[in-house]
């Protein structure tokens, strides 16, 4: 446990060792100085503001503190040595290396590892980072310790001649669901599913999901033969459970699968201890070497780092449509191969399969908050899914549906009498005497294959191992002698499909690299070579049976060496580890796709069983109505197809597809119109054209192909699909005729349909409405010439150019007439399909509401399934135009793809007849309270009164003020007299004291200007003045009183002087 210490990056090198405190053998404790060193450093002194800064060098002395506890073993530096960089300088024998830690505590010495101080540069917790115990993440060990533990494990396994096998639970060895229906079925022996579900085990979880799903029962179905499988495997493998379920869930299942704990022991790891919600990793259990570990799992994508060790198992899907109840946290399941040969009677109800729930990948969610939020979200998601399962009971619904189908089948069989074996959606195993068919059937064989694979792998591994150690003593086995089971497995797998070159079609979504897709990687693991293009050396074309008509199929059909098989071939081969014979999986390709140089080659491959593939969608209809009688036609057209068939060019390809569609068109639901009605129509058309060729105004849509038919019988022939001219289509595109057609179309698209009811009424023009009879239309045609008067604005102004087109228009219109005629004036059956190289089929949708202005809407289906991707519905686009002769529409339609304009919807966009009702704009508020004038007057009155009272108050105040002033005036003399008296008294007292002290009164001032104080003035004078004044006041002599104050002062002043 010697540890070599380094000086550290943070010192200021170069340093000089000045003193070593501890000798070898001395003990050190943490943070104790063991070394002293000096160093030079530069320092700036002076005032930077005055630009007097300068640098000086100084010597520093520092201690180096021990970051660890132990005993000095050896010094690698001497005192006085100069050290220039970070290097190792001392070896310390540590007391404890902290190699095993539990929740931040060293499990060896019990010290807290989370403590941090200045002496240590790294955390002690970093010494043990590897978590390798199944049931606890808090327990970590160092890498060395992990290596030792693992070596021990490997030695033991080698001695017992075992390997480690990591087993997934959900859909690998068991299938779980919480649907309460299972419990009901278990109670009911009469239920058709009773046999299947009677050995389904169940348990409840205490800490299961919250909410509605809390306390629900988990129903566990073990894969057939599981116990025997595990028992046999336990002899040659040490089994581990690794599941994405919770720990309680995993333990419960382990208890069911392995009640005595003999198989798995305590080697169970669950989501709670995994550390990641989205991926499993063998490194979690075997951190150093996975050389002896094999994984079986139904999902390869959750093992991103351990693919070589993985044996992918076909998912066990016992409870149909339930999926994996613990997969909410995982990315969406990608492999599309449905290996079960019996297709589900009904597709699983959307949203019930947890695998269908959107869950995000783990990719680089660096922010832990975000991650937590994501986890929260996913937990809720899972709860929702479980609740949904409880509420919706998908299995019950499926069974009910099955029962319904059975009833129907029964009815049917009763009708038929002897045909007892009515097809029941592939559930052929159901006993025929049973009235109801069971939804759940327990016919999985995967474990048998799996056991073979594992045994084979084990054998192969130990063969290699024996060869390697044959000459050596078993004691000194090191990890280098142990062969890698991953490589072995890879080798075994890669032999399975070696030499096959596979092209996938319709199995991988568009835009995904086939080689990187789940299915592609899986196939590549097995040695198959994945190609993206069909070429001569390709051996198999694997296609989805739901999309058997892709470009690749057509291409591959031309090369006889390519076997065209459905995806089950690949799935079964991968599951059974055998290159299965392709014959039972061959797909019969559509006659028109088949590469036949005439009929002889079609018959040249009779070995292929003819499996009719029922397709969905609009083609289905075509197919269902197709008679055998048309096969000849089909072949003919296919011939044309092939000769035109370009390899890569998309545009060319689209051209190429045309004739095939012609053939489809023939078989369309409007066959009657196309084949029988047209002759009549043509006749009628001729008549019509004769009668009114100038007709310019039509309320209906016309079709150019009819036009060309009438003009050139040759084209018509081709349209019917029995002509051989190839490339005439291209020719016709560029031809003048086509140009004309385009022009005509442009006019047809918008303006030609413009009509106005008002115009009709006002002018009585009797323009033909679609509802109208033929007579009316004739009339309309006659009036058409007057076009200008109508609001229709047909652009008659450009008559010169139109002249040329008019003929076409007339034809188109006429044709429409004819069509209406042919359909017996039933506008609700508005389909007309015309096919010609001139691009579109137009289907007119009944009588148009006539409006002065409207939107033209075109719905274009592009039926280009020449692409090899598997897009399910035919794509369509809506075109909308408010302008006459929309360029855009024209441009789009002119594209030589198979667009068919399906419908012309005329949508009224204008005000209703008679205009809108007038807008009410007058304010009509309700009156309440007094009128404003009243308020005004009242305010005035209140204010007047207020001012009046205010005036009164002011007057009174002034009076009071005056009163107060006079009372003071009268008082002043009295007060003054009192004070004067006091003054005199004091003066006399002073003089008396003076006399007493000095014996006499001496003159203070040698001046005769000194006068007596005022009060000492002869008082009679004062009294006289006062008396006069008083008399005057009493006499009421106002003038005197008013000047009284002045008088007083005058008198006083005189008195002073």
């Amino acid at each position, binding site marked *: 446990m010697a540890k070599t210490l380094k000086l550290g990056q943070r010192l200021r090198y170069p340093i000089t060792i000045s003193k070593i405190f501890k000798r070898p053998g001395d003990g050190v404790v943490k943070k104790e100085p063991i070394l002293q060193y000096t160093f030079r450093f530069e320092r700036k002194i002076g005032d930077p503001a005055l630009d007097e800064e300068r640098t000086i060098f100084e010597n520093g002395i520092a201690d180096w503190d021990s970051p660890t506890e132990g005993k000095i073993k050896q010094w690698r530096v001497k005192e006085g040595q100069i050290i220039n960089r970070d290097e190792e300088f001392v070896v310390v024998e540590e007391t404890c290396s902290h190699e*095993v830690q*539990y*929740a*931040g*505590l*060293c*499990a*060896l*010495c*019990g*010290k*807290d590892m*989370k403590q941090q101080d200045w002496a240590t540069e790294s955390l002690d917790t970093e010494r043990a980072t590897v978590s390798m*115990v*199944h*049931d*606890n993440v*808090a*327990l970590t*060990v160092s890498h060395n*310790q992990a290596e030792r*533990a693992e070596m*021990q*494990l490997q030695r*033991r396994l080698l001695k*017992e001649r075992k390997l480690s096998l990591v087993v997934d639970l959900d859909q690998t060895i068991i299938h779980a669901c919480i649907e309460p229906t299972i419990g009901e079925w278990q109670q009911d022996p009469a239920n058709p599913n009773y046999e299947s579900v009677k050995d389904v085990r169940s348990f409840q979880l205490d800490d299961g999901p919250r909410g509605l799903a809390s306390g629900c029962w988990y129903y566990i179905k073990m894969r057939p033969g599981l116990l025997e499988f595990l028992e046999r495997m336990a002899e040659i493998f040490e089994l581990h459970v690794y599941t994405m379920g919770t720990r309680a869930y995993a333990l419960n299942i382990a208890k069911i699968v392995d009640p*005595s*704990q*003999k198989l798995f*022991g*305590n080697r169970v790891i669950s989501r709670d201890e995994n550390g990641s919600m989205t991926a499993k990793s063998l490194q979690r259990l075997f951190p150093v070497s996975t050389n002896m570990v094999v994984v079986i799992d139904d999902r390869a994508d959750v093992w991103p780092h351990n693919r070589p060790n993985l044996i992918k198992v076909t998912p066990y899907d016992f409870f149909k449509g339930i999926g994996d109840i613990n997969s909410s946290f995982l990315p969406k399941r990608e492999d599309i191969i449905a290996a079960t040969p019996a297709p589900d009677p009904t597709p699983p109800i959307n949203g019930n399969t947890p695998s269908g729930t959107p869950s995000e990948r783990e990719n680089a969610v660096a922010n832990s908050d975000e991650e937590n939020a994501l986890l929260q979200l996913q937990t809720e998601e899972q709860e929702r899914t479980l609740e949904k399962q409880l509420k919706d009971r998908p299995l019950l619904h499926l069974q009910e549906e099955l029962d319904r189908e059975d009833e129907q089948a029964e009815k049917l069989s009763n009708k038929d009498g002897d045909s007892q074996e009515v097809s029941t959606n592939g559930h052929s195993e159901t006993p025929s005497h049973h009235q109801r068919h069971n939804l759940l059937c327990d016919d999985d064989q995967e474990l048998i294959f799996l056991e073979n694979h594992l045994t084979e792998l084990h054998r192969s591994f130990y063969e290699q191992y024996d060869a390697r150690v044959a000459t050596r003593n078993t004691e000194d086995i090191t990890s280098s002698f142990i062969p890698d089971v991953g490589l072995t497995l890879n080798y075994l797998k890669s032999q399975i499909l070696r030499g096959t070159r596979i092209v996938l079609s319709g199995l991988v979504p568009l835009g995904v690299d086939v080689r990187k897709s789940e299915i592609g990687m899986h196939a590549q693991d097995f040695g198959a070579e994945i190609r993206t293009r069909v070429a001569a050396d390709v051996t198999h074309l694997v296609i989805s049976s739901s999309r058997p008509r892709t470009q690749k199929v057509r291409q591959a059909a031309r090369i006889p060496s390519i076997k065209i098989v459905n995806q089950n071939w690949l799935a079964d081969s991968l599951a059974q580890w055998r290159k299965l014979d392709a014959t039972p999986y061959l797909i019969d390709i559509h006659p028109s796709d088949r590469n036949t140089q005439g009929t002889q080659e079609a018959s040249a491959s009779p070995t292929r069983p003819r499996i009719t593939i029922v397709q969905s969608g609009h083609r289905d209809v075509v197919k269902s109505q197709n008679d055998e009688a048309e096969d000849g036609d089909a072949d003919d057209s296919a011939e044309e197809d092939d000769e035109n068939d370009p390899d890569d060019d998309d545009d060319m390809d689209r051209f190429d597809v045309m004739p095939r569609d012609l053939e489809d068109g023939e078989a369309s639901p409007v066959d009657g119109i196309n084949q029988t009605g047209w002759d009549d129509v043509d006749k009628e058309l001729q008549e019509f054209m004769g009668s009114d060729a100038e007709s310019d105004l039509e309320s209906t849509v016309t079709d150019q192909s009819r036009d060309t038919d009438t003009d050139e019988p040759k084209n018509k022939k081709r349209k019917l699909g029995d002509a051989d001219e190839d490339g005439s289509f291209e020719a016709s595109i560029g031809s003048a005729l086509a140009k004309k057609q385009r022009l005509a179309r442009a006019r047809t698209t918008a303006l030609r349909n413009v009509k106005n009811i008002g115009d009709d009424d006002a002018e009585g023009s009797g323009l033909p409405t679609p509802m109208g009879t033929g007579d009316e239309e004739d009339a309309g045609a006659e009036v058409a010439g007057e076009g200008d008067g109508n609001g229709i604005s047909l652009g008659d102004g450009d008559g010169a150019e139109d002249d040329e087109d008019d003929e076409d228009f007339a034809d188109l219109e006429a044709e429409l007439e004819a069509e209406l005629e042919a359909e017996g004036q039933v506008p609700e059956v508005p389909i007309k399909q015309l096919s010609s190289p001139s691009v579109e089929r137009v289907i007119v949708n009944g009588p148009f509401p006539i409006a002065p202005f409207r939107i033209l809407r075109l719905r274009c289906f592009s039926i280009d399934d020449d692409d090899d991707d598997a897009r399910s519905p035919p794509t369509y686009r809506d075109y909308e135009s408010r302008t006459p002769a929309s360029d855009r529409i024209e441009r789009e339609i002119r594209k030589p793809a198979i667009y068919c304009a399906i419908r012309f919807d005329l949508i009224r966009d204008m005000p209703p007849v008679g205009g809108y009702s007038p807008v009410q704009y007058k304010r009509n508020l309700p009156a309440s309270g007094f009128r404003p004038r009243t308020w005004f007057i009242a305010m005035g009155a209140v204010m007047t009164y207020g001012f009046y009272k205010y005036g009164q108050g002011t007057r009174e105040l002034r009076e009071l003020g005056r009163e107060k002033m006079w009372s003071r005036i009268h008082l002043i003399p009295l007060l003054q007299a009192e004070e004067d008296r006091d003054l005199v008294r004091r003066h006399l007292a002073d003089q008396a004291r003076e006399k007493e002290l000095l014996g006499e009164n001496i003159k203070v001032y040698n001046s005769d200007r000194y006068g007596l104080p005022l009060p000492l003035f002869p008082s009679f004078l004062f009294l006289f003045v006062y008396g006069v004044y008083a008399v005057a006041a009493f006499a009421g002599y106002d003038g005197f009183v008013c000047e009284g104050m002045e008088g007083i002062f005058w008198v006083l002043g005189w008195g002073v002087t």
Partner: protein
Amino acid sequence: MFFLYNLERRVTLHPSYFGKNMHELVTGKLLKDVEGTCTGSYYIISIMDTFDISEGRILPGSGLAEFTVGYRAVVWRPFKGETVDAVVVSVNQHGFFAEAGPLRIFVSTHLIPQDIKWDPNATPPQFTNNEDTTIEVGTHVRVKILGTRAEVGELWAIGSIKEDYLGTLQV
């Protein structure tokens, strides 16, 4: 080690509980909130009694009433060097986990006597010296605590049975 400890806690009560029996409610809430929790350095095992429930104060904003309650509780604090009896709950190649009440103690192989060895092949896997001592899930052991670490609400401990009189208990 167990202690009787006087503690204090602020308990809030929702306005809908205001009434005659508020004090019982406060006590009940205190028991519910506090009993069996770990405060960081000790576990509150049981509340003996409450001796002082203060006047309630309405908290502005929420309307809850806050009572300061003094109570006396039995607390258990594991000490370094203390010897406890525990039950083994999980065994792996690095050692075993034992639970002494609420405390989970890890005893690593270094702190198990040399002669008691890990035996993964036994069912269930166990530590054994092939004589009298077998440590498997459910075994009662006497463990000396070597170190503890506390975070809010949690305590961990490292234990040892590598001393005299430690190890399995005869049941």
